[in-house]
């Protein structure tokens, strides 16, 4: 068992409202990711759930029981801290053993558990070193081992992979997913890396300025962003947003272009809208009926693909293309739009207007 639920968490530091009514529902055994930019309140959320931060309002329920006033120890959670928080005077071995020592396990149990963790995380050679003698990535793995060494109600992980190099990060991503499956435990995982969020999560909560913007599966968050901000934050290259309005059966851009009005919109005529177009739903290589005229602004070769920047009026569209695509700057071209996959947002509130019709 291990459900974690936070309801209406509020916390302010002096003038900063770090958490502004955060509500999360983490099901038992799920890999739940909180995704948000720096300063969104991710760490504060985790610390509040762990019982390290006194809340202004809101409650934390663990396994359905109100745990708002409980001490951190009583909550039976394990946490990987963003800055590791490894005990400086203790060896890696002693750091990993610490949760077991607190529970008065026998030294043979401890040795067995630390052994298991160190081979799982490839840190056997580091066990006798102190944190000061470890690299950032090594410290992060020791911190992970310290959390994983026991079986708590749930694991709280604060950006545990950010300091690893790319290769190790990809490796550890798979490894963590595997550990999660084999333990069947609840993971509440915080990151600002959308790739991590989309690749590892069962469920993602997108956090911005202390408010949850959207909760859903990675696909839902990517395919049906609740507002223009989520659409802009999730996805790489970022979604292109064009100002427009509906007029009869046309969408008329502020820059003068027109497109057929998508069947699924319910937006009334004349309302200020934002058309959201992801790079993979645009093409400069295929022809179609829905197209925007523009000129080539730049090419960004990324190896497996090239991102073509197309200027439409004063706005820039990012278009995904094959790596072989070529062109000269200023060249006129047509960008074909897959309108069935486009998004419309209210320009004022930023809320999605697409969901109803899909």
């Amino acid at each position, binding site marked *: 068992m291990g459900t974690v639920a936070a309801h209406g968490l509020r916390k302010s530091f002096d003038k900063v409202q770090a958490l502004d009514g955060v509500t999360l529902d983490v099901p038992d055994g799920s890999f739940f990711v909180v995704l948000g930019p720096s300063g969104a309140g991710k760490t504060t959320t985790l*610390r509040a759930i*762990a*019982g*390290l931060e*006194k809340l202004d309002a809101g409650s934390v329920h663990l396994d359905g029981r109100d745990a708002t006033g409980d*001490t*951190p*120890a009583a909550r039976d*959670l*394990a*946490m990987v*801290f963003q*800055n590791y*928080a*490894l*005990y*400086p*005077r203790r060896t890696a071995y002693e750091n990993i053993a*610490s*949760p077991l*020592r*607190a*529970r008065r396990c026998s030294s043979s149990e401890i040795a067995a558990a630390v052994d298991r963790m160190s081979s799982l995380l490839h840190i056997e050679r580091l066990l006798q070193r102190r944190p000061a003698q470890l690299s950032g990535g090594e410290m992060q793995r020791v911190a992970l081992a*310290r959390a994983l060494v026991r079986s708590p109600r749930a694991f709280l992980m604060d950006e545990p992979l950010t300091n690893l190099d790319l290769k190790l990060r990809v490796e550890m991503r798979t490894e963590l997913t595997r550990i999660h499956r084999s333990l069947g435990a609840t993971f509440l995982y915080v990151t600002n890396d959308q790739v991590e969020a989309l690749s590892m999560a069962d469920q993602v909560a997108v956090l911005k300025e202390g408010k949850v913007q959207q909760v859903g599966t990675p696909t839902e968050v990517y395919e049906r962003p609740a507002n223009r901000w989520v659409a802009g934050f999730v996805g790489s290259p970022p979604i292109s947003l064009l100002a427009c309005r509906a007029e009869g059966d046309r969408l008329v851009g502020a820059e003068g272009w027109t497109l057929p009005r998508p069947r699924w919109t319910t937006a009334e005529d004349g309302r200020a809208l934002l058309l959201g177009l992801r790079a993979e739903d645009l093409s400069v290589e295929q022809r179609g009926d829905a197209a925007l005229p523009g000129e080539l602004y730049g090419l960004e070769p990324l190896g497996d693909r090239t991102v073509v920047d197309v200027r439409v009026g004063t706005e820039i569209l990012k278009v995904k293309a094959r790596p072989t695509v070529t062109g000269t700057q200023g060249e006129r071209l047509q960008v074909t739009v897959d309108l069935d996959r486009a998004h419309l947002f209210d320009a004022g509130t930023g809320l999605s207007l697409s969901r109803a019709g899909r």
Partner: protein
Amino acid sequence: MAVSIDEAVSPGPVRDHTAPAPRRGGRGRSVLELALLVVLAAVMLFPALWMLETSIKENRDVYAIPAKFFDFTVTLDHFRDVFVAPGGGRSAVSVSFLNSVVVAGVSTLLATVLGVPAAWAYSRFSVKAKKDQLFFILSTRFMPPVVVVIPIFLMYRQVGLIDSKLGLILIYAAFNVPFTIWMMKGFVDEVPPEYEDAAMLDGYTRLQAFWKFTLPLLVPGIAATAVFALIFSWNEFVFAIFLTSSDDVRTAPPAIAGLIGGTTVDWGLVAAASVVFALPVLIFAYLVRKHLVAGVTLGAVRR
């Protein structure tokens, strides 16, 4: 005492004794600097040197006119007199040294035991009007002892603490607790609170987390703070002379002062007693010299 302050703020190799600070300016400047420092050192150290000499001179040489700098007979008689009474048995001064050890030791222990957890609490928890509280705590140190000694004398007489070691211990502890809180708060602030957070998630209580994880990191700071408190209690004169009178309670400072007076002054004995009195402070100051500098420059430590 002058010597230990001197040591504490000496501009020399402050951080690392193996690597002296690089000299600024050219050779001429360094010679001038050296000359000035020698003069300064001579002026500062002369009384201490003279005290040392007097303590090992025979009485004849002590009173010799003109004063003898080098060609005197060395004797340890004065040091014997410090510890042994003329008729045999313990001398009053030696008893006072013992009292000083007890009073300074226990009061420092008390101040540390009370002050360190308080400093931790002020550093870690959000306390209402924290700044005002801390200022109030510090402000108790603004007042010179002579100002409060009369009321305390009257109070002590009421409650029967007058002329007792316990009375001195309590008043010294009371004076040292604010100092300990302030100095230790600086050291606690330097230890990231995350270690305690991690320990609590490991399953320790808040107090265990402090005791097992933060306290060991504070030991150097505690040592430095305790030495300061110890030196204060060891040297304290005003309270000691007002609040104690009998020989078996008196601490060393008033006891040594008591040697001067009467019709003749045994300067050899006074000097020897002073040397013995200064020695522990010098040794302690030497042992924690690095931390003394840290303590003196505490205001400059980032928060």
